[in-house]
């Protein structure tokens, strides 16, 4: 199936998230656009503080004051025939949003220990989601919860249903999180660093499980991570973020083999084991990510970019557009203006 035939589950159009604090306004997301298809894993990668989680928090209606979604549209297509529903058109605590969140849209968080309630039995926590989003009776819900626990690889489900989260190991807790997230057959799953903090063998088990379930339920997955190795192993498409914007988006193989944006290139060179990385001394990106209150004119990456064109990159923000038939990128090396600028300099 080509990309066009596949059903688009979620469409995010130019959203921006601001946090207004006493020290000034932090532009956490500064215009992000992407689509997620059914049975597709879109990985969003970036360093800490680049706003990779924020766009999906906006999708789930989890941005809390002082944060605010200041512009953009988030269109959710429940199935192919239904009209798209703009999640930002309703209040985040409205009944419409509450009926979707946790049911059709689900999320797994990084810390399974803090995301699970320590004072409720894990069965009850799965039951809660089913109670809100399905019309099953008590016995039906119990059956469904046990099915989900078995599905995510927790043996002896009927006994484990009555245990508390502290009686499970880290990997098992993450499985429970996945069971809660998937018990209502969501169309879209947002996984925010679901395997950070888990061991490699457990990580591999969890990633395998997410891959299986993605196919089984034909759901779109947004996978937020900073680990490029996990991306190379699991994702279908990859979006690289830097300071609140997507700088490059392509399918996985293209992104790793032919990175276009200077940031992506530099990032891949600094990852040990990637084909672009050198042996011995690693190439690193000069400088550091600007602080949240710093204002960077033009392209956010220009102070650290080796291809920076003075007079253009530090003045005007490049548009995020198709640069060849496979890749979308936001860089003046590919824009008309950039080409003109280069010629005029030469």
């Amino acid at each position, binding site marked *: 199936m080509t990309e066009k035939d596949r059903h688009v589950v979620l469409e995010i159009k130019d959203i921006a998230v601001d946090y207004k604090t006493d020290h000034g306004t932090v532009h956490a997301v500064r215009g992000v656009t992407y689509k997620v298809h059914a049975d597709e894993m879109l990985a969003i990668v970036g360093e800490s503080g680049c706003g990779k989680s924020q766009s999906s928090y906006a999708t789930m209606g989890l941005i809390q004051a002082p944060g605010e979604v200041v512009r953009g549209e988030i269109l959710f297509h429940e199935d192919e025939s239904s009209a798209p529903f703009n999640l930002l058109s309703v209040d985040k605590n409205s009944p419409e949003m509450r009926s979707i969140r946790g049911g059709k849209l689900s999320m797994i968080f990084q810390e399974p220990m803090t995301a699970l309630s320590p004072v409720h039995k894990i069965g009850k926590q799965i039951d809660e989601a089913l109670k809100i989003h399905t019309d099953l009776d008590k016995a039906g819900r119990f059956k469904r919860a046990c099915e989900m626990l078995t599905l995510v690889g927790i043996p002896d489900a009927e006994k484990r249903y009555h245990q508390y989260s502290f009686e499970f190991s880290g990997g098992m807790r993450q499985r429970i999180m996945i069971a809660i997230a998937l018990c209502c057959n969501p169309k879209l799953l947002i996984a925010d660093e679901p395997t950070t903090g888990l061991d*490699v*063998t457990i*990580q591999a088990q969890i990633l395998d499980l997410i891959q299986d379930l993605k196919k089984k339920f034909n759901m779109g997955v947004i996978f937020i991570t900073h680990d490029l190795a996990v991306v*190379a192993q699991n994702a279908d498409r990859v979006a690289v973020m830097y300071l609140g914007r997507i700088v490059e988006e392509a399918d996985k193989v293209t992104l790793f083999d032919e990175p276009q944006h200077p940031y992506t290139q530099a990032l891949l060179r600094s990852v040990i084991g990637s084909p672009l990385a050198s042996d011995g001394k*690693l190439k690193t990106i000069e400088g550091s990510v600007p602080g949240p209150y710093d204002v960077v004119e033009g392209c956010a990456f220009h102070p650290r970019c080796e291809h920076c064109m003075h007079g253009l990159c530090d003045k005007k923000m490049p548009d995020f557009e198709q640069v060849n038939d496979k890749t979308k990128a936001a860089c003046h090396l590919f824009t008309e203006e950039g080409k003109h600028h280069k010629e005029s300099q030469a």
Partner: protein
Amino acid sequence: MKPLLNVENLSVWFPKKVSFFGKPLTWIKAVNGVTFQLKAGETLGLVGESGSGKSTTGYAIMRALNPREGKIEFCPDGDTVYDLASMDQKELRPIRKHFQLIFQDPFSSLNPRMTVRDLIAEPLKVSGQGTHKEHTERVKELMAEVGLNPAFLNRYPHAFSGGQRQRIVIARALTLNPKLIICDEAVSALDVSVQAQILNLLMELKEKHNLAYIFIGHDLEVVRHIADRVAVMYAGRLVEDGSAEDVLTHSLHPYTQSLLATAPRPDPHFVYENKPLSGEVPNPAALPSGCVFHPRCPVAKDCCSEKVPQHTQLDGKSVRCLMHEEDSKHNWDESFSLAETIQDD
């Protein structure tokens, strides 16, 4: 030349259940019979899943924990040998300057109420060397060495990013010119591009000062990059030990092989052959009998649950697996020949 560090049969046990009179009844065997050597200027990568006892081993070597048994022979100048395991804390004080520790999280390992100057000069102050002015000079020198601007001398840790804080931690570890630095997951909490910077710094410093590192980590690619030798731990035991290249490319132990087979690589063309290991690291209070890895081992035989494997020297590596032991090797040979005969029929 004597090795810098010679660890023999090191065990660390924690009491789990204590009787009414304070006598331990049951034990958690966190580290069991760990043996390895480390030369000056060498990097040993210690890898394993969480709960495998790799940090506990590091802390026991530093005597931040008391080992239950074993020898830790430390030879900082190539001549005098100290057995760290049998010394008491008072005797240890003058030797402590030779080994330092770098922790994982640079946000919690720096006191937020101390300036960078005080943080880096603290080891000097504690060991009673030099004057205040000399300390400041040394701090400036160290800050320049780890890539920090010496003008930031009087700033507090909160003004620095994660990578810069880790540089402060490294500077503090270098203050007393140690011979051995134990890096406990020193780069795990950092972003990839920063991680590369810190790894480069650690490797530069190693060259410059002929430092030995015990690099504790779970990221095999990072360990492969920095380590000369690698020791793999599982449930408190060393299962394989050898040169980094050898262990991480031609591993002999099924556990190392499964770890390598499942570790994700930043290369979309890499083909993963094996299914991930099922199950989890066993509870150290109730370890399985025989080989501790047998419940998860993809090639385990009946004998694995009965006999404890010993260190076997093979191809320059030391490996603890019955599959490679002379007396029990035949258990695997048989199954292979059986498979062959079935094919022949």
